[in-house]
Each structure stands twice: as structure tokens, then as C-alpha cells.
């Protein structure tokens, strides 16, 4: 992929950043990415990002976990080695279902939670041994960094970002990933 030019503006306060995002959006510039040391409330809305779909995946993972629990308990306790549960040797899944409810619940939560986190990591392009994409390590401490795409309007953008209260403005060539 070709390399593209971006402008990186660094802020030291989340309120200043929020106002800057609104100004930049109002001027119809494209914000590529924002790096923050902590989740900034309302930033996604200000940037105009789509609502997350991760809740839907979580629901589907929960359903998967529930199914796995049902199939698993049916195999373990009813088919493979029929168990006498609570003195009621009926060997029927549905009649012994109350005994399996805690497992069904736990597996639902386990699948929903773990797979959702893994999905989130993958969607954020994070996996083991991945080199960090973070352009400036200070954004893991107390600085906020906004990346705006440049289309031959560096001077304009630099001035605009300077007005919004950026403490540092750099123009960098960025490798596409």
C-alpha cells in the first residue's frame, strides 16, 4: 500500500481534546484515529463512529455457550455415563434440567465474556507479538493524540489544530498496514 501523510496533534486534556474533535469535525476534516491514555466518555459520538456491534456478538456467543453447556451435560450426565441425580434416576435431560442450570448459566457467561474480549482484541488488531501501532508512547501516560488525514492542506490544518489548543503538531508519513 502507498504511504499517506497524516498530521498528529497532541493534547494534554480530555476536555480540550473533545472540543478539538468537534471543531475538526465541523470543518469536515477526516479524523483517522485518536489515541488516549483512558477511555474518554462521548468521544465515539463526537467522532461520529458507528455504534459498536460487539453487543450482538456477545449475545451470539452467549447462545453458543448455552448450547455447548446443554449438549455437554447431556453427553456427560445422560448419555455417556447415565447418572442418578438427586435420587431421581430418570436419565432424562429435561427432568434433570434444574441440576444443569448453574452450568448452563456459567457457560453462557464464560463464552459471552471471553469470546467477546477476544473479538474485541482482534477487531482492534491486537494479538500476541504484534508490534504496537501507537505513534507516541506518551499517549499511554498523560497525552492525547489526534491523527487527521492530510490532502495538500497542511498549512490550513496546522493552523486549525493550533487554534484548538494542541501542544504539539507533527506531520508524518505513515505506512499503511
Amino acid at each position, binding site marked *: 500500500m502507498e504511504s499517506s501523510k497524516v498530521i498528529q496533534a497532541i493534547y494534554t486534556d480530555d476536555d480540550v481534546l473533545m472540543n478539538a474533535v468537534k471543531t475538526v469535525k465541523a470543518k469536515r476534516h477526516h479524523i483517522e484515529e485518536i489515541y488516549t491514555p483512558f477511555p474518554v466518555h462521548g468521544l465515539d459520538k463526537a467522532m461520529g463512529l458507528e455504534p459498536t456491534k460487539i*453487543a450482538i456478538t456477545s449475545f451470539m456467543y452467549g447462545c453458543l455457550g448455552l448450547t455447548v453447556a446443554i449438549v455437554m451435560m447431556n453427553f456427560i450426565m445422560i448419555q455417556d455415563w447415565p447418572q442418578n441425580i438427586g435420587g431421581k434416576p430418570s436419565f432424562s435431560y429435561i427432568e434433570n434440567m434444574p441440576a444443569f442450570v448453574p452450568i448452563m448459566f456459567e457457560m453462557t457467561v464464560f463464552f459471552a465474556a471471553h469470546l467477546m474480549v477476544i473479538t474485541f482484541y482482534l477487531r482492534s488488531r491486537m494479538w500476541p507479538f504484534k508490534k504496537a501501532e501507537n505513534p507516541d508512547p506518551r499517549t499511554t501516560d498523560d497525552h492525547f493524540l489526534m491523527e487527521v488525514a492530510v490532502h495538500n492542506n497542511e498549512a490550513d490544518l496546522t493552523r486549525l489544530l493550533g487554534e484548538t489548543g494542541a501542544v504539539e503538531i507533527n506531520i508524518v508519513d505513515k505506512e499503511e498496514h
Partner: protein
Amino acid sequence: MYTFSNKLKLGAIVLVILGIVGWGYSYMNAHNTTVEDVKVMLAEEAADHGGGHASDADTHEVVADDHSSEGDHSSEASPVDTEHHDDEHAEHVMHQIHNRPYSALYVAAFFFMMIALGALAFYAVQFASQAGWSPVLFRVMEAITYYLLPGALIVLGIALWAGDHLFIWMDPEVVAHDELIQGKSGFLNKTAFIIRALFFIGGWSLYRYFARKFSLAQDNSDDNKNFKKSFRIAAGFLVFYIYTESMMSWDWIMSVDPHWFSTLFGWYVFASMFVSGITAIAMVTIYLKSRGYLDFVNDSHLHDLAKFMFGISIFWTYLWFSQFMLIWYADIPEEVTYFATRIEHYKLPFFGMLVMNFIFPFLVLMNSDYKRIPWFIVTAGIVILLGHYIDVFNMIMPATVGDRWFIGLPEISAVLLFLGLFILIVFYALSKAPLKAERNPFIKESEYFHY
């Protein structure tokens, strides 16, 4: 200031009158039923059911089993002499038919009392935790809790008036022949019942009285003294509440089955009343908002209330299931009889309640966006409230009317009666004070509350 609209007032009065008429009619009807009527009715039923004799006998065996362990009204002994047994059975059924209007009235009265008590506990939690999101809703909560004192006195009054129609341990005849109840009579006797009830009601009402007083006084003060006092009594009340609520549930509900007990029962009733109270708060808030009041309540407040409705519904299910599973697993006759009778004779309300109190709100309120849409909250709220009415129904009815239950005239009239009374009292209380707790130290935070 809210003014109680005449339309709503009239509607509530109509509900009360309809309730009194309907309930009174079914009371007279039930009261005039004699053993002879019951015999005719039973004969007709037997004819209707025709060839179901074998299964009928089965049912009776189960019933007899339950009763010998449960010590219900009847002394339905083993069927030695069929004719004698028939007579006894007819009399037993007649008692059940007589009990029904009392039970219907008691269930509805308890249900609305429970809403007010749950709202009071929720209100106290807001103060004890110094919550910042909720002060805009305080006046709604205070208004709902205004029903607690009259509602609880009515419940107590019905309990004493109905006497052994509801609580067989109030019948000296039964106690004389029942060793298990005799063993409990140090706790379970009429005098102690009244003293405890007055102690509970007195404590709750005292807290509600002072909390309201401090809340109103805070409106016109220039420091936070009243808020601090309210904080302190809220913490004290919550301790008092969790003990007395639990004991109240043994007295007012669990003792209708005096042989049966569950150590989880207080918690389970608590979850029911908490979610009902929160749902009532949400629904009154939405009603007032739709009438143009409470413009300072935004959809984030509704979102939080809906989250509580969702969460406490799951909490209720958790406690209900914890109680059910342990008893089901252990399968001890004296314990399992509680669920055996319910699954045998109350299949629809018993499992229907699970759908209404858990599955429906779980699916409807799961999506974050839906928790902000008023009609979604109202729909879920109506189902939750009906579900918890059925929950109380399932706690009381099997012990008093057995398989002679139906949700018919007496039940619906009783609900209308207390719904009307509840609306009259709650909206009267709403009209007595400004709808915004102006000087609450957290009111600004609450107004700007945004999720």
C-alpha cells in the same frame, strides 16, 4: 407543583368502586355456598371428567400426601370409608371456596403494599449510597412510599379479619391436633403476630415520616444538615428493613403453610418487592413526563431505572431458582411438597410467572437502546408487575384454596380496588410538594446526569 387531575382521580375512584362491587359480589357468592352445593358441583365435575377416574384417584393420593405433611385445613385422612371421605372432601372444597375471596383480597393488598415497601427500600438506598443520578426522582419515590402505612395496615387488617381463612394456625382447633404448629406457637400466635406487625409497620413508617420531613425541610434550607440527617436514618433504616422484611415475609406469607419453611424466603420476597417498587417508580415517572411534568428527568434517568428493572429481575430469578433447586435436589417430602402442589395444580401461573418475570424482561430490556424508549419500559413494566402479582398469588393461593383457584372476579376486583386506592394515595402525595427536590446537594449532578 403537580395537580391531581380530576380525570385521573375519577378514574381511580371508579376503579375502587368497581373493585368493591365485584369483590363484594364474589364474597357473597362464595359465602352462600353450602356443602350441598359443593356436592352437586363435585358430582357435575366428576361427570364432566368422565373416564378420568384413574387419574383422579392419582391426584387425590398426592393431595392426601401433601396434606398429611402440610396440615392444611382438611383432615383428609386415608380413604378408608369412601362415603365419609366424600363428605369430608366436599366440606374441604367448601372451605376452599369460602377462602377464595379472602385470599384474593389479601394477595392484591399485599402486592400493592409490597410495591410501596420496595420503593421505600430503593429510596433509602439512594440516600445511604449518596447516589448522584437519582435526586430528580425523589419526589416520585416519596409519593409511592406514602401508600406504605395505609397499605400495610390494610394487609394487617385483612389478615386478622380473615383469620383462619388464611392462616390455619389462627384456628385453635387445628393447633390442638397439630404437634408441629404447637411447637411453633411460641412464635406463631395471634398476639405475637400483631405485636410484630405493628413493630414492622411502625419502624417503616417512622423512617418514611422523617425521611420525607427532612427532604421537604432541605428544600428551604441553606445548608445540608437535613440531607445528612436523612443519610444517617437511611443507613439505620436499611439494617432495620432487611431484618423486618424477612420476618414480615415469614409472618405474612410463609405462615400460610405453617409446616413448610425456607431460609431463603425473605430474600426471595425482597427481590420481588424491590423490582416491583422500581418498576412502579419508572412507570409513575413516565406517566408524569407524558403529562408534561418532570421535564428535568431525561432519558438517562429512565435508562438507569430500566437497568435496575432488568438487573433485579435477574436477581429475583436467581433467588427463586436457588430456592427451587435446593428443594428439588434434596427432595425431602416436607420441603418438596411446596413445589409439588404448585407444579401439580398451578402449572400455568407457576411457569407463566417465570416467563413474565424473567424471560420477557430479560429479552425486552437487554438491548441498551430499548431501555431509553418509554413504551418499551412501560410494556416490560406491566408484564413485570403482573408477573409479580402472580408470584404473590402463587405464594398464598395453594395454601388457602388449593386446586380451586382461578384468576376471576374476586382476584381482578381486588386488584382494581387496590390499584384505585394506590393511585389515589400516590398522586395525592405527589400533589403535596414540588416535584423537584430543589436544594438536595446532588440535584445539579442529577439534572446533568448523562450516560
